[in-house]
């Protein structure tokens, strides 16, 4: 993920509105990954997510003169993506029921984590194996929607708590509670499976061979 740079963005937006339209490509590029995965987490369908991502980006372009700079550009863009995604979701009515329970369930936390002491090392190199990625994706996709969105923004796209709250239109306290629940669910689900991936010697921050 590219770190947002508000000076670059403000300058870019000014110039695009003044007619240098091609700069829009550079403005949106750092956001395009997050847009897709936010929509994927809502819609759970690659083709729908890509389609709505394109609509989102066009909407951003058409409304660029309305961006006021009182939030980060990325926050604004992801809020638009979320709205577009929710709109699409309403059209595909009969698909998504899984968030209903979780909506009211946020505060009641009694989570027993998976207890095991043998999985300590990150199996970094096992990420090259498709299997590990697919375990993680499946676990995340299996989360109730309100947790999935928070995990997506905070842990996968690495927005901070404040930005995640702004995109989702909820309080920072809610983001923290949901994040905690989500991580506890993922730990419980994943730790027993992931310990099967033998850790290789630590090279997480080292260079690649």
């Amino acid at each position, binding site marked *: 993920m590219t770190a947002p740079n508000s000076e670059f963005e403000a300058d870019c937006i000014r110039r695009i509105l003044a007619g240098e339209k091609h700069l829009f490509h550079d403005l949106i590029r750092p956001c395009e990954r997050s847009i897709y995965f936010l929509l994927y987490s809502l819609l759970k369908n690659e083709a729908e997510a890509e389609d709505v991502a394109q609509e989102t980006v066009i909407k951003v372009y058409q409304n660029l003169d309305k961006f006021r700079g009182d939030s980060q550009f990325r926050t604004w863009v992801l809020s638009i993506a979320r709205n577009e995604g929710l709109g699409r979701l309403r059209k595909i009515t009969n698909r998504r029921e899984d968030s209903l329970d979780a909506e009211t369930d946020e505060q009641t936390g009694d989570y027993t984590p998976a207890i095991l002491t043998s999985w300590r090392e990150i199996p970094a190199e096992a990420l090259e194996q498709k299997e590990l990625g697919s375990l*993680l994706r499946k676990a995340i996709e299996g989360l109730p929607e309100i947790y999935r969105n928070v995990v997506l923004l905070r842990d996968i796209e690495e927005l901070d708590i404040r930005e995640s709250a702004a995109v989702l239109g909820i309080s920072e306290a809610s983001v923290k509670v949901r994040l905690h629940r989500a991580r506890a669910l993922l*730990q419980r689900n994943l730790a027993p499976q992931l310990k099967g991936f033998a850790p290789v010697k630590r090279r997480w921050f080292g260079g690649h061979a």
Partner: protein
Amino acid sequence: MRIDCKHVWEHISAYIENDVDPQLRAEIDRHLETCEICSAVLDSTRNVVILMADDRVFELPAGYSERLHARIDRELEKPREDGTPQH
């Protein structure tokens, strides 16, 4: 005050975020020194968080970016629809 395992679990996410006050942090640290189970739970939760941030876990569909920018190009060729003055 000694805190128990369940108490530690309640704060694991905040602990990873570095979002617990210093006193609680010290209590948790003290607990972790002697509790193998909690320290394993902390490690595995942190591992899951680190793994999720790896770009290889979530890869964009092949050609996504190209198709997106091609769509943008088609839009840029149009005159701006809202008719706002170009300032």
